[in-house]
């Protein structure tokens, strides 16, 4: 039995569960949607939708995939995780299948956000948007893997409050709401220390139809490195926690 088959089975199962819980998908994208509808019209008095929407995509990535570990907390508590760990399924598949399903949820949420964005006046280049969605898949995998790893080592009770608190500064430091080029020096430096700034700047370039430049290259590189790193960390934690 291959890792791919196990991963596929777990992925399909988790996708079925999340599609059934439509409220969960909507809820995850609700906050960025509110920003789009209630803050976007203000923002466009100083900047274009093509700048704001990628920011909101970072926001939904952090709030949706970043909090994905909550699901594993539930499963661990119900004994589901342990039950699966006694099957011959590859343990890395138990993590990856779940993480890929989280990533798919994020992509659905991103498409919803972009669609509403178009309705409000977004005029992003379609190829750029598609590449940005690819970045979102990777970002979803990264954040979900990391979130699951943290959920496994953290006190389950503390996971939700601590993570949702930690996510806010990360969203702000990425420059999601206003570009960091407007920031004072110290904030700019702080922002450069977080990976999401680079992903976001690349997505803004992509939305503007610029594909081959240093910003895009850097953003893609950061996203790829981040996902490899997070999957490795996630797998290690998952294996260690489960002997």
């Amino acid at each position, binding site marked *: 039995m291959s890792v791919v088959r196990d991963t596929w089975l777990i992925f399909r199962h988790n996708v079925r*569960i999340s599609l059934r819980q439509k409220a969960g998908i909507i809820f995850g994208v609700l906050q960025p949607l509110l920003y789009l509808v209630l803050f976007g019209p203000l923002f466009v008095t100083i900047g274009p939708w093509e700048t704001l929407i990628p920011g909101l995509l970072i926001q939904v990535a952090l709030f949706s995939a970043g909090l994905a570990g909550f699901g594993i907390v539930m499963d661990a508590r*119900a*004994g589901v995780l342990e039950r699966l760990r006694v*099957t011959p*399924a590859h343990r890395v598949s138990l993590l990856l299948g779940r993480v890929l399903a989280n990533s798919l949820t994020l992509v659905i949420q991103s498409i919803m956000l972009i669609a509403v964005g178009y309705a409000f006046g977004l005029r992003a280049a379609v190829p750029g948007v598609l590449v940005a969605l690819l970045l979102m898949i990777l970002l979803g995998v990264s954040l979900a893997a990391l979130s699951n790893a943290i959920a496994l080592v953290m*006190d389950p009770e503390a996971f939700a409050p601590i993570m949702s608190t930690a996510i806010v500064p990360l969203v702000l430091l990425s420059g999601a709401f206003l570009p960091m080029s407007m920031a004072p020096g110290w904030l700019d430096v702080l922002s450069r220390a977080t990976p999401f700034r680079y992903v976001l700047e690349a997505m803004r370039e992509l939305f503007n139809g610029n594909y081959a430049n240093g910003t895009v290259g850097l953003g893609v590189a950061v996203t790829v490195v981040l996902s490899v790193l997070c999957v490795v960390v996630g797998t290690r934690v998952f294996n260690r926690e489960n*002997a």
Partner: protein
Amino acid sequence: MIKTSALSKTFPGGVAAVRGVDLAVEAGEIVGFLGPNGAGKTTTMRMLTTLVRPTGGTATVAGHDLLTDPRGVRRRIGYVSQSGGIDLSNPVGEELELHAMLYGMRPAEARERVAEVLGRFGLTELRDRPGGALSGGQRRRFDLAFGLVHDPVLLFLDEPTTGLDPQSRAALWDHIRQLRDGFGLTVFLTTHYLDEADTLADRLFVIDGGVIVARGTPAELKGGTGTLDDVFLSITGRSLRDDPPGSPATDGEPTTGRFLEADPPASSDFLGSSGPPKSPGSPESPGTRDERRAAHLAGGER
């Protein structure tokens, strides 16, 4: 079916939970594994089921080496944990099919097999219910279905009847006996109930302080005179009844501190009141969580 030699587990914190266990279980036996909380009972079972990696000794389980071929072991064993493993919001039948397919079954094969197991436990009508909508006894039967859906040769049961009312317990005992008699299944179970050990098990192992301190048939252990309770007291210096509820397990086992007296009044709608919480919203008992947390901090496994 099971053969261990000096099997041990020392958690990274330095706690020696199991200090050299030698066990031999033959095919077709129902074996009871007894011991006070913190004796190393759960850790031993979790090693035998590949959930915890031993730090010393060797073991062959269901024909596969525990250390070099844990996946081989997993293919051939079934394990039903104390709290079960039922998703509260998903249709149980769907979970069962996934479970079966993770053992390599094709979709059609898995469906067939799930239907067969559900039929055997009288659960066919309940297959589309989410776990949260099942009664305690029903959930316990589903737990067994998960443990048996891939037709294992060896079944591990951790405190299988804790929290069940007398009728459900008796019914479960019957099921376990039938599995052995009809399918030649080997069963390895831990229990807090000495009457359960007495009536159900062919042979007993008593663990204390991380080593096996007594073994034999219930009759041999009782020596014709006392009850198992007396025997247990004289062997371990403790009665199973003496463990204070919620006492921290010294070996970091995720025990839940449930005892004879602590068991709830007979009710077929149950586990919620004595088992680990079934609802995602309900907090775990502080003891349980702290113990798990402690096991975590010590680098132990959940």
